[in-house]
């Protein structure tokens, strides 16, 4: 799966910087990503024809997500999709925050997520901010150890100085995606969240010294929790 990403902004500098920020989370090949930003003469504005061209460059058949900033970006993106044609292509403008959504979407796309996962992660990308500021409670679920499907459980202590910040979270997501298993992570009373969700992991607010609990189900549950626990206690290679 390789979901394409298009970034539509009034400002070329804003779009390029947002992409730079998101690509900091990428440790291998970047996903197919293009910006369509600014006017042809270098001013502020959006260009539906540029959006159309950018979509064409990243549409590899697994879908394209489009991030938009303000005002006319949305309408230019809609028109750009219409001009591009190709009704067989799954092209979605995301109702995601521009910067946070792009970061989350890039992490998902690099991990090989399908377009549904990329879209869902991007559109819930304000959750960590909401959780931190108390705007919304951090997502909680049932006790992960109580369900009948729990197959492998382990715990791991965070050793790296900065805790489970964005870069280690992205690495953990990539590692979790290697296994055929559903892996949930909780930090004390916070969580559980999916180990393949960088947004979810960010809401755990996990710091150095915190103990993360990993619970996995699925064919590779045992190998998955063992690998992730080793990865965490090794400090994510940082």
């Amino acid at each position: 799966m390789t979901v394409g990403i298009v970034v539509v902004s009034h400002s070329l500098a804003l779009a390029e910087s947002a992409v730079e920020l998101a690509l900091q989370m990428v440790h291998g090949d970047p996903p197919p990503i293009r910006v369509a930003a600014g006017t042809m003469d270098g001013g502020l504005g959006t260009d539906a024809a540029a959006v159309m061209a950018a979509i064409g460059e990243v549409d590899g058949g697994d879908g394209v997500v489009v991030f938009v900033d303000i005002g006319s970006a949305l309408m230019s993106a809609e028109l750009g999709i219409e001009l591009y044609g190709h009704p067989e292509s799954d092209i979605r403008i995301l109702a995601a925050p521009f910067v946070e959504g792009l970061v989350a979407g890039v992490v998902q796309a690099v991990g090989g997520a399908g377009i549904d996962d990329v879209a869902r992660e991007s559109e819930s990308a304000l959750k960590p901010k909401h959780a931190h500021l108390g705007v919304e409670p951090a997502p909680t679920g049932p006790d992960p150890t109580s369900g009948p499907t729990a197959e492998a459980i382990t715990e791991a202590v965070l050793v790296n100085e900065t805790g489970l910040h964005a870069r280690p979270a992205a690495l953990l997501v990539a590692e979790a995606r290697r296994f055929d298993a559903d892996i949930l992570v909780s930090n004390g009373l916070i969580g559980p969240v999916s180990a393949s969700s960088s947004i979810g992991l960010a809401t755990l607010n996990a710091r150095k010294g915190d103990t993360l609990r990993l619970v996995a189900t699925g064919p590779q549950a045992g190998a998955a929790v063992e690998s992730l626990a080793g990865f965490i206690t090794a400090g994510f290679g940082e």
Partner: protein
Amino acid sequence: MGTVTSTDLTIDQLADWLRRFAGIVEQNKSYLTDLDSAIGDADHGANMARGTAAVVSHLDEANTVDALLKKAGMTLVSTVGGTSGPLYGTLLMKMGMATGNVTQLSTAEFARAFRAGLDGLIARGKTELGDKTMVDALAPALDALDASVADGAQWPDAAAAAAAAAAAGRDATTPLIARKGRASYLGERSIGHMDPGAASSTYLFDALVEVLG
């Protein structure tokens, strides 16, 4: 393709229409920007002047009405920069898609194509009459044009009636509360200001009057 009669708009007249629209926009660039600075981001004049000037630079490239209008629309979506780009661009592109591969339009054909363009613009902007937008000038103008066609009126009277209706619609945006675009953030503070998009929309009909007058 019918024979050219006095009621037909030729492709050269349609190109002249777009050229004169660009001219009126350029003359009123500061005025449009002043209107937009009151309730928007103060770029409507500059954006429309840049876009319509680009349209003029491509007018010689088309040999048919549909190609002329589609090219003009595509040029606007690429060069205006603001929301007016996709809106005016959709208007002209949908208009071009409705005319077919012809070199002149009768009054009725022009009205029908313009209606297709307006429908496209309304779908693009998800706009309704009374939202304090371009539609508030364009819709009554089109209604007037359709009424002229139904009455058997010819150019230039039909154009003059449409222009008058557009101006009345534009003026009627002043007491409205903006419900679309950046002006909608102002809520009741948008009352008392004319909508810049409605103002520039009237220039389409003023330009038509110039061409036919």
